[in-house]
Each structure stands twice: as structure tokens, then as C-alpha cells.
């Protein structure tokens, strides 16, 4: 009876084993045997352990390669995107031949050109290619190269011909040609900040808003802003609530008239302030406000009678100097006592300290503050906007719940900060008064970027990210200065400007100093300086498919050669730009080098497969003999062991890719962890951005799979040949 039961249980067990064996089609006999051999089993512990180790090593290598290649590939993509955002996939710049040509130099001696050299745009717009008038203008210097003339005697015009040639290049989707100018100037910004927010020690709480002024001066490159360069949007930093608060606060001032040394702040007249505020609220709807981090002076009228609050108190000389009503468990750094605040029926305030049972009646001037960073819904009172002569005159209807009590009423904007607001930077029709920030218009379905220009503030400029990191905000004003030579002296010229946005310059080395401004301004400064040394000029060629850049370049080169203007122009794709070439090349080299090292590591990892398979062949000698006796060919036997190698390779790769996927998914957490261990940023944010790219690269996947499969197949060949060479008669006889 018991025997029957035993047999039965065995059968059940064995049946479950056959369930996990993989059923493959009749043509997959070799693969099915290979899989059978690879399934770990106790009887072949050594083989199982070695094959497990081989698979783990392969997956480790695959993991490393996929993560590394994905990150570098992503980085290159981000860098290129930022590079293209500020430049173009292809840049055409004038060569030395151009600047030495009669065509370029002749403007300097011609009355028709106002004796100034012309930019590419001016050359394109000029009616005559040759403005020289032999009768009026001075003689052409003998040192000049002779004029390059067409067959009909007219001057060869490299600029107009280049534009014509570019227009005739077909089959490049989204091709757009735009000249750019780069010049230099001196940027001076006046940063006007609310004193209470700058320095907690000078919280002049009882006074009206007080502001402090600092200025920032820097020599900067000025690049011409291209309204149609929509790629720029990818590099723009978002406008935040701090920026909006700043725009509102600096409405009161007139930074362009601010003297550098003067402590007195230049104020804007009431009419200007009024129009600025109207314009602001035309575009921005404030939804909630926030108390400044050092605390906000509570208007007493918000208190209702007969209410009590837990407060933190700063006692100075035994008297309460400041009181803070806190929300939650926040602790005010200056507080040195705790107590209860009571408002009586006449809204007088009384303080009872925890350590002292006596109640103190507070003077109306004792500041009662609401602790910092408390947000509450707020709505502008339209009537206050009409009367406001400065931003702090604006009144907001608020509703605030602190310590379970509701405060409702109107409060002035004084010292408060914007927390949330609805605003737009995309308009279907251009606004009559520009907003203070860079905006886009989508007229007739064509998107255009606009740098604002506001008469009372000046020209809007786009600053690189580094300025924002240094504390500059949108709305800050100042001026650009440059030297303009006149007949007798050199004069400093000032152009009023204000900050209209920030962009991320990525890897462009001068990016930290490159300011984007309307082309009219760059042209103005350029023509005043009349020096090519400090400035550069060229043509950006934009198109959609970046990878086609070399072909487009070749096409341009060809048409330029046909037009006879090739010597005047240098055509470069974004990979060849002098200022980024090294970095991009280095990244490429690193990737190639890494792929090579990776291949070597994969080879080492796969060599484990060889030893494992040789052990397996020795282990399976008899089975090989039996299979041969049943008619399996030597090719079949070789295939079985070849498959073993490939299956291990593929399993390792899949495992590695899976771990890589998880790693990439949690990459930021990992990087933060590493940074924490090291005590400093593991990856320089200047190069790598605030977060590393974590998209798995298809290229990396392909590379890894092909390399691993090929190498594991090669590793399988040696044992496979050994297995197929075994003579079945010898094996079976020796048994």
C-alpha cells in the first residue's frame, strides 16, 4: 500500500519536472538539448556554479556598458541640443579672404557706405555691390587685392550669391538661413532688492518697505537674437514666482537712471509705475502669496477680538521686541521665549510668557509677525490698482488660516512674495505693451520669439544661467555700455536694458558671458566699434534633421563652388565649431575607447564560457556517444554546445539590460547617494546638467547584444569542435 503511494508521489514530482522542460519544435533538437544541459542541477554543481558565474559576469559587464553608453549618449544629445539652440546645425563664416577682399574693404573708403564696413546683413540689403565712386572717394590703396569681378565686369558679390545659393538648396526640410552677429559690450545691472528679504538682521519691520541696491558689472559678448530660432526654447529656463515678484517690486524704480555710486535709489514717476503695474496685471493673475522667510508684519486689523495665539518671542532687555505667530513646528532663530498672545475686545494685544504668569500689554508698535513661507490665497483688489503709485500700494484680498483661526481682509503687497500666479508667455496676437519677459507669438500659425522692448525700461536681454545663479532676476534693469569713437574722442554710449529671461548655454565656453539682444542693438554697437577684432559675423543655417548636417554641408559647398564664392566662406557643421569641437570630440573618443574596453571586458567575461563548456563536454561525453549512436551528426553535437554559449551570452545580456534599466530608472537617487558619500557633487552640474540623462540608448543596446552574442558564439566554438570530434565508438567502448 505504502509503495503504491510512493510511486504515485514520484510520478507527480517527475511530471512537474517535465512541465518546466521547454518544448521546442522538431527542428530545434540541438537547442532543446542545450537548454537541458544549462538548467542548473545538483548533480553537476561545478558546471552550474561556473555557468552561473559566467552569466553574472556577462550581465555585470553589460550593465556597466549600457548605463555608461546610455548616459554619454544622452549627454551628447543634450549638449548638441543646447548648442543648436544657440547656434545652428551649420554655420557659414567669412574667411580671411573675405575680410581682405576689395568687396569688404571698399565700404571703409566709400562715401556711399558712410565709410563704415558692413555686416553681412547690411551687405545683403545694400543696393550696389560696389559703392565705390572713383570721382568722389579716395584712391584705392595699392596694397589691396584686386577686385574679384564677374565676366560682365560687375563685382563678385559673395553675400548675395551665398544667399541665392542657399535658397536654391532643395530637399532639406525646414531649411532656414539667418545671419548672426556677435560683438562685445559692458553690461551693468542694478539689483534692487527688498531689504527685509536680503538681510534678516535689518528687518526694519516697522517701517515701510525699504530697498537696497547693488550693481553688477561684466564685460560680455553680445549675440544677435534670432526670433525664428525656436530651438532656443529648449534652452530657456522657466520663469518662476521669484522673477514675477521682482518684476512687480522693481516697477517702482528706474534702474537705467541709477547712478552707480549713489545710495539713493532712482524712482520711476507715478505715471510710469501705474502703467507698468497695469501692464503687469494685464498679463499676470496672482492666485496666492507667500510671507517672506524672515516673517511678515501682521497688519493689526486682521486680528479679531478675543483670540489667543501661541507665539515665539524675542526678549530684549526683558521686553518683548518681536513676536512670531508660527504655523506648525517652525522655530524662529531669533526667538528666545514662548508665550501666549491674547487680543482683547478692543484689539489690543496682551502677551503672557510661559515662564512668567504676569500678562504684559503690548504697545501698538510692537511688531507681531507671521512666520515665513506661509502661503495663502490672494486676489488683487482692482480698485487699488487704479490708485497705486507704487507696488506696495497694491491691496490684496486674502484668506489665511493660522493656528485654526481664519484671517480675512485686505493687505498691502508690502514685503509679501508671489507664490502662485497664472501668466502666459505665448500670445496669439502681439500684446500692445510687451510683458517683461521673452514671449512667443503664434500669428498665422507661425511661431515667433520676441525679446520685449519697453520704452520706460529699455531693451530686453536674455542672460545665461550663471547670472540667475548669481541672484539676478527677471525685471532687473541696467544698461549696456560701449565705446564709440567720434571725430575727436571716444565716447561711452549707454543702451538701457532689462533682464527678460535666462537660458542655459550648455557647453559653449563663452556661454557664461553671452548675452542675447535684438539684432538692431548688436548692429548699432558693431557699426560704432567698426572693428572686426572683437566681433564676428556669419550665417546660421537651420534645418530639422541634424544627422544630415554633413550632407547639407556638402551640398552648400558644391553650390558655393559653382557660384564661384567658395574661397570667401568657411562652412562648418555643429561638430566642427571651434569652440565646442574639442568637447564633442572628446566625448566621442571616450565613447569609442569605452566601447573598445567594453569589448575586451566582454571577451574576458565570455572566456568563462569556454572553460565552463569544456567541463560540460567532458561531463557529457557518454551522452554525446549515445546521441551519436542514435544518428546525431557531429554538426548537431557541435551546435548543442554552440547554443549553450549563445544562450548564456543572451541570458547574461538580458539580465544586464534589466539591471541597467533599473539603474537608469533610479539614476538620480544613485548619483545623490554617491554625492552624499563623497561629500561633494559626483558630477559637475556645469557639464552634466542638474540631472544625468537616463534614457536607455538603442545604440548601446544594439552594441551590447551584437558583441555579446558574437563573442559568446566564438567562445562556444572551441568546446563545440572538441565535442564534435569525439569518436562515439571510443566513448561507448570505454564505458
Amino acid at each position, binding site marked *: 500500500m505504502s509503495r503504491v503511494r510512493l*510511486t504515485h508521489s*514520484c*510520478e507527480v514530482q*517527475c*511530471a512537474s*519536472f*517535465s512541465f518546466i*522542460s521547454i*518544448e521546442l*519544435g*522538431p*527542428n530545434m*533538437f540541438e537547442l*532543446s538539448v542545450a537548454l*537541458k*544541459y544549462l538548467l542548473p*542541477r545538483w*548533480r553537476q554543481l561545478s558546471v552550474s556554479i561556473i555557468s552561473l558565474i559566467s552569466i553574472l559576469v556577462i550581465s555585470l559587464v553589460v550593465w556597466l556598458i549600457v548605463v555608461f553608453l546610455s548616459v554619454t549618449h544622452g549627454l551628447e544629445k543634450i549638449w548638441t541640443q543646447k548648442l543648436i539652440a544657440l547656434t545652428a546645425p551649420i554655420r557659414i563664416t567669412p574667411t580671411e579672404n573675405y575680410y581682405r577682399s576689395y568687396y569688404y574693404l571698399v565700404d571703409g573708403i566709400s562715401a556711399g557706405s558712410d565709410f563704415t564696413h558692413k555686416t553681412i546683413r547690411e551687405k545683403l540689403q545694400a543696393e550696389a555691390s560696389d559703392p565705390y565712386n572713383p570721382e568722389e572717394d579716395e584712391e584705392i590703396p595699392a596694397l589691396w587685392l584686386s577686385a574679384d569681378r564677374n565676366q560682365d565686369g560687375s563685382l563678385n558679390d559673395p553675400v548675395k550669391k551665398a544667399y541665392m545659393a542657399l535658397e536654391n538648396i532643395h530637399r532639406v526640410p525646414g531649411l532656414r538661413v539667418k545671419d548672426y552677429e556677435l560683438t562685445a559690450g559692458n553690461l551693468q545691472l542694478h539689483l534692487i532688492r527688498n531689504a527685509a528679504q536680503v538681510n534678516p538682521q535689518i528687518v526694519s519691520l516697522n517701517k515701510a518697505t525699504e530697498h537696497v541696491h547693488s550693481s553688477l558689472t561684466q564685460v560680455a559678448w553680445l549675440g544677435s537674437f534670432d526670433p525664428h530660432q525656436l530651438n532656443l526654447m529648449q534652452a530657456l529656463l522657466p520663469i518662476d514666482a521669484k522673477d514675477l515678484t521682482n518684476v512687480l517690486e522693481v516697477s517702482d524704480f528706474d534702474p537705467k537712471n541709477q547712478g552707480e555710486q549713489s545710495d539713493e535709489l532712482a524712482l520711476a514717476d507715478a505715471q510710469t509705475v501705474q502703467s507698468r503695474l497695469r501692464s503687469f496685471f494685464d498679463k499676470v493673475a496672482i492666485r496666492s502669496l507667500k510671507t517672506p522667510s524672515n516673517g511678515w508684519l501682521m497688519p493689526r486689523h486682521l486680528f479679531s477680538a478675543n483670540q489667543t495665539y501661541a507665539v515665539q518671542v524675542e526678549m530684549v532687555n526683558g521686553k518683548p521686541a518681536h513676536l512670531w505667530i508660527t504655523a506648525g513646528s517652525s522655530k524662529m532663530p531669533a526667538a528666545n521665549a514662548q508665550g501666549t498672545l491674547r487680543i482683547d475686545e478692543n484689539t489690543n494685544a496682551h502677551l503672557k510668557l510661559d515662564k512668567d504668569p504676569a500678562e504684559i500689554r503690548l504697545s501698538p508698535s510692537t511688531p507681531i509677525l507671521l512666520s515665513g513661507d506661509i502661503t495663502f490665497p490672494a486676489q488683487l483688489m482692482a480698485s487699488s490698482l487704479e490708485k497705486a503709485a507704487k507696488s506696495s500700494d497694491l491691496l490684496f484680498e486674502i484668506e489665511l488660516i493660522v493656528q485654526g483661526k481664519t484671517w480675512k481682509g485686505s493687505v498691502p503687497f508690502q514685503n509679501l512674495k508671489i507664490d502662485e500666479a497664472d501668466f502666459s508667455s505665448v500670445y496669439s496676437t502681439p500684446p500692445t505693451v510687451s510683458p517683461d519677459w521673452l514671449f512667443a507669438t503664434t500669428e498665422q500659425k507661425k511661431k515667433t520669439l520676441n525679446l520685449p522692448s519697453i520704452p520706460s525700461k529699455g531693451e530686453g536681454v536674455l542672460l545665461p544661467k550663471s547670472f540667475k545663479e548669481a541672484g539676478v532676476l527677471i525685471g532687473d534693469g541696467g544698461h549696456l555700455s560701449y565705446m564709440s569713437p567720434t571725430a575727436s574722442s571716444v565716447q561711452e554710449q549707454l543702451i538701457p536694458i532689462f533682464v527678460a529671461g535666462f537660458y542655459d548655454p550648455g557647453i559653449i565656453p563663452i556661454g557664461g558671458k553671452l548675452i542675447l539682444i535684438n539684432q538692431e542693438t548688436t548692429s548699432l554697437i558693431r557699426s560704432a566699434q567698426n572693428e572686426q577684432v572683437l566681433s564676428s559675423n556669419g550665417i546660421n543655417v537651420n534645418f530639422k534633421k541634424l544627422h544630415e548636417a554633413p550632407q547639407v554641408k556638402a551640398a552648400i559647398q558644391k553650390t558655393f563652388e559653382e557660384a564661384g564664392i567658395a574661397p570667401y566662406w568657411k562652412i562648418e557643421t555643429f561638430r566642427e565649431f571651434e569652440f565646442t569641437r574639442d568637447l564633442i570630440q572628446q566625448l566621442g573618443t571616450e565613447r569609442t575607447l569605452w566601447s573598445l574596453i567594453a569589448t575586451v571586458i566582454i571577451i574576458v567575461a565570455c572566456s568563462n564560457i569556454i572553460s565552463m563548456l569544456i567541463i560540460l563536454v567532458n561531463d557529457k561525453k*557518454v*551522452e554525446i*556517444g*549515445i*546521441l*551519436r*549512436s*542514435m*544518428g*546525431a*551528426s557531429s554538426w*548537431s553535437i557541435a551546435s548543442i554546445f554552440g547554443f549553450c554559449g549563445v544562450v548564456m551570452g543572451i541570458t547574461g545580456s538580458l539580465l544586464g539590460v534589466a539591471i541597467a534599466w533599473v539603474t537608469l530608472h533610479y539614476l538620480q537617487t544613485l548619483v545623490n547617494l554617491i554625492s552624499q558619500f563623497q561629500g561633494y557633487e559626483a558630477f559637475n552640474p556645469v557639464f552634466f546638467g542638474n540631472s544625468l540623462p537616463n534614457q536607455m540608448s538603442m545604440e548601446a543596446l544594439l552594441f551590447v547584444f551584437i558583441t555579446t552574442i558574437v563573442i559568446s558564439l566564438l567562445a562556444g566554438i572551441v568546446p563545440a569542435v572538441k565535442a564534435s570530434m569525439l*569518436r*562515439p*565508438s571510443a566513448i*561507448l*567502448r570505454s*564505458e
Partner: protein
Amino acid sequence: MPPSYLSSVVLRATQLIKTFYSPVKVPILRGVDLQVMKGESVAIMGRSGEGKSTLLQILGTLEKPCSGKLEILDKEVTSVNQNAMRNRHLAFIFQSFHLLEDYSVIDNVLMPARIGRRAVGKGSLAYKQACELLDYVGLSKRFHFDTKRLSGGEKQRVAIARALCNDPDIILGDEPSGNLDKQTSLIIHDLLLEFVKERGKALIVVTHDHTLANLCDKQYMLQNGHLVSIPSMSI
């Protein structure tokens, strides 16, 4: 009077010569001639070291003769067709059973079918045949059994079932009962001979066992590299 199916020759060996050269030159077979008809059972006897197993392996195309000709079903065996020949027309039964230990009983029986690229799924013809064969050898309750758990006799029954899986024409037995006790040997002999008779297969066994040899239609003795026919009663 021989039965009517004993008409065609399934195996014909002509002047098989085999010499081993390593470590010293040893001539094993010096010209062996053998003809086996369909449904015929042949026993080859001889002293140890005479080359019985070598002859069997040559007949089973596992070993190449130094010279001589081997024809199976009137086709000469070459290095090109030998694997297919072995798979389709030949089957081995070994003294030490040689089952595939990683596989279950039914999978062992199906292995020749797998190698022959036949479908072996549950509904397939090969599967049905394998079940029938296992039924016949009395192992119908051991289909999914691990081969390691079987007794010697059971193992040899599986080997017999496996040998017949691809419906071969010739079965080659190398001491098929050499590792079994006397009683089990008798059962295996009966099973094997009954099987070949019933299904019309040719059987060539190499054996020391006179009982088995006497059960066969013909008996030969391998002596000095030559095959000598001996009358059955004389053994």
C-alpha cells in the same frame, strides 16, 4: 521452412578488415563477410578481445573499417549518409543501457525521433508509438519517471523501447543482458526476440551468453579475425 518475409537482405558486409595501429599494430578483423536477412536474428560469439564489439560498431556505422564494404538495405554506407542510416535503419542496445540521465523515460524513448526531426509533441505519431512501446515492455506506469530510479531490468526495457522508436530495420545488441541477473536476462531475451520476430526486424547480438545465442536463428564465432558459422546445437 523459413517464413516468407525472410527474403530480402538488410545488411551485407563484405571483406571487412580492421586493424588498430595504436599502441602497436593489431589486426582485429581480417576479412569478415556477413549477410543478415530481414527478420533474422544473428548471434556473434567469441572470446574477449577478439573484436566482437568492434565488428558490431562497424556494422552499426559507428566505426569505419580499414577496408571492405558495408551495405544496409542495398545501399552502401558512406560518411555522408551514415548518420541518417544510423538514425533511420539501425538501433543499438548496450550492455550498460546508456540511457540519457537528464531525461525522463518517455523522453529517452523519443530521443531517436527528436534526432530524426520528427514531431514529438503529445498528440504526435512518435509520441503514440513511444507510449505503445513502453506499454509493450511493461513500463506504462513509468512514462515520466526519472531513469536513475529504474532497476537494471527496467532500464534495459527502456533501451529496447528506445531502440524501436524510429522503427529501425536492424537492431544491434552488445551484450544486452550482460549486466543483468539470470532471471531478468531471460525475461529481456524473450522480450527482445519476441519483439524482433513480431515486428520483422533483424537482430545482431554480440554475446557470451549461450542461452541467448541459442535463441537466435544463426550463430557465428569470431576467431582470428574471421567469422565462422556454427551449428546451433554445437554450442
